[in-house]
Structure formats: structure tokens, C-alpha cells
């Protein structure tokens, strides 16, 4: 019996999501650290796109299609999914040193990303708790 038969695919998806939230946190931290560095370009991971690619390409978490009416995730599966790191090249009007970090946006992204990470960790914890209940048998 493989792991996914016990835990299902939900935990795999949540795991990928948490990994990517953590990666995005890294990108945001880097932007905040370089808020005053001349010629630094702000970076971001496009989370939704990356997760969609991951769900399509990763066999462990791919959705089963057992009925013609099931939705098939669109796009071609791609096994060599890398994160798309997008650089913001729009010049910042209040800086004239080639730096494109908008500190307010970064702080909001930091908070949002952290909250999403918390939410994911809670959902995973609840998944495990339901399993625990089943195993205990009451």
C-alpha cells in the first residue's frame, strides 16, 4: 500500500502549495532586503500558474478522469516545470536609481503570503487529525 492510498492526493497538493508559498516568501524577503539597492529589479513567483503546472505535470497529484464529464485541467502537461520568476521592469517613479521595489506592495504580499501559508498548514493539520480520528475509531 503506497502512502497516497492512506493519505490521498490532497496532502500532496497542499505540500506543493506550501513549498511554493515558502519559495515566494523567499522572493519577497529578497525584494524587501534590496529595497534601497540601485538597479535591483523586484522579483515575484506567479503562484497560481506554478501550482497549475505542478498539478498537471506531477503524476502523484494529477486528477483522475474517470467520467467523460469530468473536467480535464487545460494545457499540455510539462514535466520540467520550473518556477517562473518574474522581474518587474517598470521604472519606479519615486526612485531614480533603477530599483523597481515597491515597498508597500511587498509588505502586503508578505502578509498575504504568510496568511495563505498558515491556512495551508491548518488544512494539512486537519487532514491528519481526521485520519487520527479514523484510526482511533471513535
Amino acid at each position, binding site marked *: 500500500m503506497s502512502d497516497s492510498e492512506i493519505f490521498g492526493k490532497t496532502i500532496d497538493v497542499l505540500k506543493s502549495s*506550501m*513549498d*511554493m*508559498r*515558502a*519559495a515566494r*516568501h*523567499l*522572493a*519577497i*524577503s*529578497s525584494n*524587501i*532586503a*534590496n*529595497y*534601497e*539597492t*540601485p538597479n*535591483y529589479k523586484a*522579483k515575484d*513567483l506567479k503562484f497560481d500558474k*506554478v501550482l497549475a503546472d*505542478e498539478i498537471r505535470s506531477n503524476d502523484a497529484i494529477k486528477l483522475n478522469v474517470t467520467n467523460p464529464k469530468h473536467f480535464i485541467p487545460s494545457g499540455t502537461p510539462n514535466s520540467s*516545470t*520550473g*518556477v*517562473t*520568476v518574474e*522581474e518587474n521592469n517598470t521604472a519606479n517613479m519615486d526612485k531614480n536609481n533603477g530599483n523597481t521595489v515597491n*515597498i508597500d506592495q*511587498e*509588505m502586503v504580499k*508578505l*502578509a498575504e503570503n*504568510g496568511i495563505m*501559508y*498558515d491556512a495551508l*498548514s*491548518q488544512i*494539512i*493539520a486537519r487532514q*491528519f487529525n481526521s485520519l487520527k480520528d479514523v484510526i482511533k475509531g471513535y
Partner: protein
Amino acid sequence: MDFLTALQVSSSALDAQRVKMNTIASNLANAETTRTPEGGPYKKKTAVLTATEINNPGGFKNFKDALEQSIKGVKVSEITEDNESYKMKYEPGSPDADEKGYVKLPNINLMEEMVNMMSSSRAYEANVTAINATKSMAQKALDIGK
């Protein structure tokens, strides 16, 4: 460990901002210094920030490469001295006055230094917030099994 990389990035910024604050404090303290060991009035110092690689990037398996190249910490690469444009003040009685009665003062604009200090201090706070967010995320991940 990936959160450790995030902490490294943020702490490199705290370090750099602290150095920057030190140069600003030095400029403010020496705004009227007319004599230095090297001779001449004090020279205004400016910390130059440069994006820098982080030593051991974390191990996200699929997207490690893309991230590894783009995640940058920050450091003070050099502290430059402004050799030009001293303020000339007419003060014939001063021991530092030249034959025409002018004293060379450092070219330090107090307003400019204060504004730089505020911006540096805000940047420091932003990085502290980022560090706290990293810590709370790591803590949440540890709480999963509870």
C-alpha cells in the same frame, strides 16, 4: 533549509542598513569637523548597497535553479568619500581660516542626512517584519503534527 535562507537574506539587509545608519551618524556627528587625521575637513561618507548572492540557497527540488539565481541578499560594498565641494564659511577669527578669512567646512546637508536616516530606519523595520513573518511561518509548519 529554506526558511534559513530567507532569514539570511533579511539579516544581510539588517546588517547593511546598520552600516548605513553608522555612516549617517558619523556624517551628522562630524557636520562641523574641520580637522581630521588625514588633514582637511571631514569628508562626507556614503554607504553603497549592492545585491549579493546568498551562500547556501535552499533545496526546493523543482524550482531551485530559477530561485537560486534570483534570490539576492544585500551588503555594503564600499563606503565612498565625497572629496568635492566643501562649504566655505567666512569666519576670520577661526584658527582654521585661510588667508582670506574663509573656513572649509564639510559638505554635509543636515536635512539630507536626516531623511536618509529615516528611510534607512524604515528599511530596517521592514526587514524585521520579514524576519518575524519567516519565524511565524516556520513555527506554523512545525505545528502541523500537533
